[in-house]
C-alpha cells in the first residue's frame, strides 16, 4: 500500500539568509558612521571610471574606500588603487552578483570607523544583483548614453530597486544622439520619483553636484541616527 502524501504549509523566504546578514551589516555600518553606497549597472556602463573619479575627487575631503566585484581578474581593483584609496577586489567566480556574505568577508580587518564613505561596485549585470541586499544605504543604478534610452524598460526590476539613477558618459551624448528626455521618462516610469543625475567621469561634468548630493545624504543619515 502506498503511503498518502501529506500537505505541509511552509513560510520560507528564499533570501532570508542574505536579508538577515544584510540587516546586520546595515546596523554595523550605521554604528560606525560609514555611508555605504552600491553601484549596479550593465557591463561597460562606466562604473569603474565613475568610481575612480569619485574616489580621487572625494579623497581630498573624506575618508573613502571601495569594494569591487567581478567574475574574474583584479584589474578593476588595480585601476581604482590609483586613487590611493583603500580598495579590495571580490572575485565571485561563477556567481553573477554580490551577496551580503561576500561583502562581510571582504571587510575583514578593516576598521569601519575610519571611513566616511564605502563604495561597493557590484558585478556588471542588470538582472541578478537586484535580488540581493548588501546592507547599503544607497543603491545607485548607472546607465550610459551609449546603451540606449530603453534600458530601464528592459530591466525594470533593477531600476525599481535603486535609490538614485546616474546617466554616465554624458560627453558622448551628441555622438550617440542620446535622447535625454526619453531616457529620464523611462527611468521615471519604472521608478517614479527617483532622483536622476547626468554626468561624465571623463570631463568631470556633473561630478561636483553628485558629490554634494552624497555628502548631504550622509549628513542627513548622521543627523537622524
Amino acid at each position, binding site marked *: 500500500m502506498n503511503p*498518502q502524501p501529506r500537505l*505541509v504549509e*511552509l*513560510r520560507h523566504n528564499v533570501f532570508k539568509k542574505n536579508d538577515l546578514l544584510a540587516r546586520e551589516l546595515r546596523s554595523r555600518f550605521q554604528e560606525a558612521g560609514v555611508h555605504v553606497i552600491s553601484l549596479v549597472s550593465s557591463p561597460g556602463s562606466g562604473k569603474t571610471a565613475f568610481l575612480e573619479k569619485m574616489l580621487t575627487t572625494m579623497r581630498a575631503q573624506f575618508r573613502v574606500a571601495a569594494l569591487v566585484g567581478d567574475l574574474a581578474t583584479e584589474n578593476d581593483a588595480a585601476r581604482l588603487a590609483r586613487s590611493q584609496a583603500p580598495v579590495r577586489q571580490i572575485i565571485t567566480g561563477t556567481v553573477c552578483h554580490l551577496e551580503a556574505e561576500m561583502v562581510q568577508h571582504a571587510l575583514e580587518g578593516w576598521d569601519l570607523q575610519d571611513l566616511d564613505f564605502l563604495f561597493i561596485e557590484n558585478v556588471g549585470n542588470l*538582472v541578478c544583483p537586484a535580488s540581493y541586499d548588501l546592507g547599503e544605504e544607497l543603491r545607485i543604478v548607472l546607465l550610459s548614453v551609449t546603451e540606449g534610452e530603453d534600458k530601464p524598460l528592459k530591466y525594470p*526590476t533593477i531600476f525599481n530597486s535603486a535609490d538614485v539613477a546616474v546617466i554616465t558618459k554624458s560627453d558622448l551624448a551628441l555622438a550617440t544622439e542620446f535622447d535625454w528626455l526619453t531616457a529620464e521618462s523611462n527611468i*521615471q516610469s*519604472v521608478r*517614479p520619483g527617483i532622483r536622476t543625475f547626468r554626468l561624465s567621469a571623463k570631463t568631470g561634468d556633473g561630478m561636483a553636484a553628485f558629490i554634494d548630493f552624497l555628502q548631504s545624504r550622509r549628513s542627513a543619515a548622521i543627523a537622524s541616527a
Partner: protein
Amino acid sequence: MHELSIALSIIEGVSEEVERLGGEQVTSVRLKLGALSGVVKDSLLFSYQLACEGTPLEGSELIVEETPAIVHCPRCDADRVLTTVQHFRCPQCGAPTPEVLSGREVEVVGMEMIS
C-alpha cells in the same frame, strides 16, 4: 543566471523541514514568485530539476505561483495590482505609484511529502 543558487536555497530550506517532520520524500513544492523578484521562472524550473538530484526532493515538481506587483496609489488612496512592471502608474487613475507593497517575494509556501 542566479536561479541555480536560488534553487539550492529552496532545496536547503525544504530539506530541513522534511528532516524535522521525519519525512522520506517530497513530491511537490509550492513557491510564490513576485513580478519584481528578478527571478526567471523557466531558468528556475530548469535549475531546480538538476539541483534536486540526490536529495529527498528528487523527482518532485516545483509549482510556481507568479504573484503580481502590488502598489499603493496615493491619489486613490488604494492598493492596486500592476499589470506591467514597466509602468508604475495606477491602472485606475494614472498617478505615479512609487510605493511598492509586494512583488519582490520568493517564498516557499508549501510542500507535499511522503512520510
